[in-house]
C-alpha cells in the first residue's frame, strides 16, 4: 500500500507491504543505515529514531503507522555540515566505543533533551534506560549528554 511520510525533512511516498517494519524501511528503502537492528525485541534501543520529535524504537513500528508523520534519523541531525550539539558532545567526550549503539543513543539523547533540557545525571541515566551499550561505556555516554545539555544552554546550537 502507498504510504506518505516525511523522513529527515523530505516528503516521501512509497509502496510498502503493511508488515514492513520502520527500521527496515529506513535502511532498505531510504538507504539510511544509522538506525541499527540490534536485539529486534524492543529492548536495546539501537534502532531509536524520532517520530514527531519523540524517541521511538523503529523495530517495533510498522512503516504504515508513520503515515503522515515526521521521522528523523541520525543522518538528519547535522545541519549545514555542522554536527548537532549531541553528536559533537559524543565526539568530545568519547561517548562511544564500538559505535553500534551510538546512533540510537544519540537519538534517545536528543529526544531526552527536547523533553528535559537540563537533566541531572540521574535523569540522564533513567532517560537512557531503553538503550544498551554492550561495550558498557555508559559513563562517557552520560558525560556526553550532560555536556550537550550545557552546550545547548550556552547557545552553541548550530
Amino acid at each position, binding site marked *: 500500500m502507498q504510504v506518505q511520510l516525511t523522513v529527515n525533512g523530505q516528503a516521501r511516498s512509497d509502496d510498502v507491504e503493511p508488515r514492513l517494519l520502520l527500521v527496515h524501511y529506513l535502511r532498505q528503502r531510504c538507504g539510511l543505515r544509522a538506525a541499527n537492528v540490534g536485539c529486534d525485541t*524492543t529492548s536495546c534501543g539501537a534502532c531509536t529514531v524520532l517520530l514527531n520529535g519523540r524517541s521511538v524504537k523503529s523495530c517495533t513500528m510498522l512503516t504504515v503507522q508513520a503515515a503522515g508523520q515526521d521521522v528523523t534519523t541520525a543522518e538528519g541531525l547535522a545541519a549545514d555540515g555542522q554536527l548537532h550539539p549531541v553528536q559533537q558532545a559524543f565526539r568530545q567526550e568519547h561517548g562511544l566505543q564500538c559505535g553500534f549503539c551510538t546512533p540510537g543513543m544519540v537519538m534517545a539523547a536528543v529526544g531526552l533533551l527536547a523533553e528535559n533540557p537540563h537533566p541531572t545525571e540521574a535523569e540522564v541515566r533513567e532517560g537512557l534506560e*531503553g538503550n544498551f551499550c554492550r561495550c558498557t561505556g555508559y559513563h562517557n555516554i552520560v558525560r556526553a549528554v550532560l555536556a550537550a545539555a550545557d552546550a545547548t544552554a550556552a547557545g552553541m546550537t548550530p
Partner: protein
Amino acid sequence: MIPAPFEYAAADSAEHALELLAKFGDDAKLLAGGHSLLPMMKLRLAFPSALIDIGHLRELAGIRADGDELVIGATTRHADVAGSDLVRSQAPLLAHSAAQVGDPQIRHRGTIGGSLAHADPAADLPMALVALGGSVEITGPGGIRTVAADDFFTGFLETSLEPGELLSAVRVPRRPGTGWGYQKFVRRANDWAIVGVAAIDGRIALANMGPVPVRARAAEQALAGGASLAEAASLAAEGTQPAEDIHADRIYRQHLARVLTRRALEHQAG
C-alpha cells in the same frame, strides 16, 4: 524478525473501527501503539489476518475529569498519562505506574488501552487499575458498557472484551491527596515485574502473583480490622498461586509479595 503477512486498514473513527472488526472477523486485531502486539507478531506468537489501526484516532485519546472520575482515552500514550498534570494531581498512583512501563521509547508509543487489553498479569497498568478500583469503557455494536477492573481480567492475557468490541476509555476515581504505595521488583532495567504491589485506600493489588492481577484480600481485611501494617502485609500472599519461572519459584514470589506489600503500605502511610 518479520511478522507474517496481514491486511491493514486504518480506521477513520471508533465507529469505523467497529465496522472493520465486523468485516474482518475474529482473526483481526486492533492496533494502537503495537508495543505488545507487534513483538508477538514478530515472534510469530500472534498472526492476525488483519490489523485495524486505531492508534491515530484523536477521539480515542486524551484525559479529562468527569465528576468523581478521570476519563483517559484508550489510545493515550503512557508518556502522556505519566506527564499529565491532571493525572499527577488527581490519580498520582496511575501517573506513577504509567511512568514505570518499559522505557521512554516504549512509553512514547504504548497506550493505556492497549496495555489493559493485552492483560499481562506482570504489567504495571492492569495492577494499578485494580488497586484504584477503576473501570474500562467498552464500545461495541450495541453501545457502550462499563466493566469494573475486578471483573475485566479473566485469565492469562484474557479479558471480558468480546469479539467485535473495542476498549475505548479507562475510568479511575479522583483521589487527590490520598496516600498510595507502589512497589515493583525487577532484575533488569525496563523489565516486567517479578512481583508488583500497588496499594491505595485499603485496596491492595498484586502483579504476577497469578494469571490475572489479584487483590490481596486477606491483607485488605486485616487492615480494615485494625491490624498493623506489618500484620496485614504478612497475609499478602494468602490464597495466591503464582507461576514459577527462571526468575522465581512460588515460595520466593510469595515472600516478595509480603515484603513488597509492607513497603507499599509504609509508603502509603507516609
